[in-house]
């Protein structure tokens, strides 16, 4: 691993720690605003938490691609990718400087002044330049994970530009147009980073099992196209209650129902995965992947419910939306990213003390995430029921029982910080210790075995 890549992985992990810290502080600022309003108000803390989370996921996803693509494309690190890392990190640090002076101006998730989108865009273009230079060296029968990385990188650019179209006055001619385009791009952007992250997860499964077919089968490609279709057309659930043209709601509702196929596939493959889990459960990297699979199942159930407009009427604008957002970003994206970074850092070769810390941290994180996620769902059900069914118009009165549940959420958040913090700090420690020359990934047991067998066969033939 090169020095710049090490810095980039380290930066991503620092972003994760920043997310956790600001997440915990802002949850208390939400409960007790009178204590925070003077010095560190919620409206300042929330963008720090949300942007840090966004940058952790995107930086982590790209850091994994940059490290893994070197092996995949058999290429070296380019100057352009180093330039990307420098501009990207500098832009994000600038964003946080602006936040600390309470300088906003953007919109949800991207609350910094829009001018800062220029260096972020420049950095992404540098990344694309470097990636596509390497992409030309791909093998003829390109494995699916390469397609997924490419899709994610290209669609991130598209959605990021679309996210900023509101700078053109035509898009602000009506409030509904602006809102529709904003949430169209936000929704599709999630799909874009999922493609990058799931791509790395697929490569990891290939490396662990040694089965190349996983990334080349027809079934895998079918689900890739299904995911891509959902990325493109299934963002409408964000704006079901906005009085836009009805066909937007119809298209999104129809496409979202294809997600049942993912659901059926998970149930169908459950037994196979269970036996796989038993086989590889000694591997820490695999533990993260297993956790992410359970979270995929739980969040898919939630997403399917929320995609039905009649149900969405109750869940929209409630904490169920937050449960879905946090369940996917922490339970799925973070777990996969930790698995991939762990693989790159070779955590399965770490000292037993370090591994024990990571194991404990993962357990604390997953247990507290269950409580965290469930408390948000309960808070959401209460808010939805009191707003839609009981039609309580007084906000304080409507929120009174919801606030009680949110105390449980904040309590679980503290343990989430401890659990994921333990993992991230151990990863950083391993990253700093990791100075040796590059070695072939040791997790690829099957291919190592196959190579050894082949060598013995070759020796036998030459001796004959």
């Amino acid at each position, binding site marked *: 691993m090169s020095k710049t890549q090490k810095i980039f992985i380290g930066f991503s992990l620092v972003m994760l720690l920043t997310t956790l810290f600001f997440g915990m502080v802002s949850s208390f600022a939400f409960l007790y605003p009178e204590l925070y309003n003077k010095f560190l108000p919620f409206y300042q803390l929330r963008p720090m938490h949300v942007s840090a989370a966004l940058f952790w996921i995107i930086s982590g996803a790209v850091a994994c691609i940059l490290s893994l693509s070197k092996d995949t494309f058999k290429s070296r690190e380019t100057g352009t990718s180093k330039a990307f890392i420098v501009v990207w990190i500098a832009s994000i640090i600038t964003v946080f400087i602006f936040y600390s002076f309470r300088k906003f*101006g953007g919109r949800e998730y991207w609350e910094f002044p829009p001018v800062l989108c220029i260096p972020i865009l420049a950095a992404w273009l540098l990344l694309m330049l470097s990636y596509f230079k390497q992409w030309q060296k791909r093998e003829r029968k390109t494995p699916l994970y390469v397609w997924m990385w490419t899709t994610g990188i290209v669609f991130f650019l598209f959605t990021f530009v679309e996210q900023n179209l509101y700078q053109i006055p035509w898009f602000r001619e009506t409030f509904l147009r602006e*809102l529709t385009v904003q949430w169209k791009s936000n929704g599709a952007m999630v799909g874009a980073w999922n493609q990058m992250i799931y791509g790395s997860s697929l490569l990891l499964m290939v490396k662990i099992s040694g089965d190349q077919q996983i990334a080349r089968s027809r079934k895998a490609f079918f689900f890739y196209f299904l995911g891509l279709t959902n990325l493109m057309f299934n963002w409408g659930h964000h704006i079901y209650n906005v009085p836009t043209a009805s066909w937007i709601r119809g298209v999104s509702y129809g496409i979202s129902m294809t997600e049942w196929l993912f659901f059926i596939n998970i149930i169908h493959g459950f037994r196979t995965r269970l036996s796989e889990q038993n086989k590889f459960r000694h591997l820490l990297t695999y533990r993260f992947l297993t956790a992410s699979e359970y979270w995929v199942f739980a969040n898919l159930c939630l997403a399917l419910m929320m995609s039905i407009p009649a149900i969405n009427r109750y869940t929209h604008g409630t904490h169920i939306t937050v449960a879905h957002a946090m369940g996917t970003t922490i339970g799925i994206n973070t777990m996969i990213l930790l698995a991939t970074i762990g693989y790159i850092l070779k955590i399965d070769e770490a000292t037993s003390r370090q591994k024990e810390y990571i194991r404990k941290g993962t357990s604390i994180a997953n247990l507290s995430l269950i409580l965290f996620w469930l408390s948000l769902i309960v808070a959401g059900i209460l808010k939805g029921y009191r707003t839609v069914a009981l039609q309580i118009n007084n906000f304080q009165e409507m929120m009174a029982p919801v606030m009680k549940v949110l105390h449980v959420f904040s309590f679980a958040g503290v343990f989430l910080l401890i659990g994921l913090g333990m993992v991230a700090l151990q990863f950083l420690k391993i990253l700093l210790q990791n100075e040796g020359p590059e070695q072939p990934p040791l997790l690829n047991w099957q291919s190592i075995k196959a190579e050894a067998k082949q060598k013995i066969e070759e020796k036998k033939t030459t001796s004959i």
Partner: protein
Amino acid sequence: MKKILLILCIGFAIYSLAVYKYGSTTKSSPTPAITKGWNIWQEKNCQSCHQLYGLGGYMGPDLTNVASEKGTAYMKGIIKSGTTRMPDFHLKEQEIKDVIAFLSWVDQSGSSKVSDTSVHWTGTYTIEAP
């Protein structure tokens, strides 16, 4: 593989253009005061605590229809001095007027609540734009 990808991308491009052009049918361009109010809304990061059409933060109430439900005087009072949960942003008189103009404009775009009668047996619903 490439063919399917191409068809999907073309479909996505056409769909995106259709959403931009025909996604919303209301026509009510913002005045300079509304645009100023909109910018203040973003600069003060109001969306981190408040929602418009259920999108935004969870700290305070949804403000989509606050103008018609509570009136201008109420909005002015809250923005001017804040509450125990909302800090005072020390906005100037004109800035407060601009924010109110923006919220009143949002209010005219529709209702954030979907009525029972709009729900169809298929699970979807139709909302009439004002």
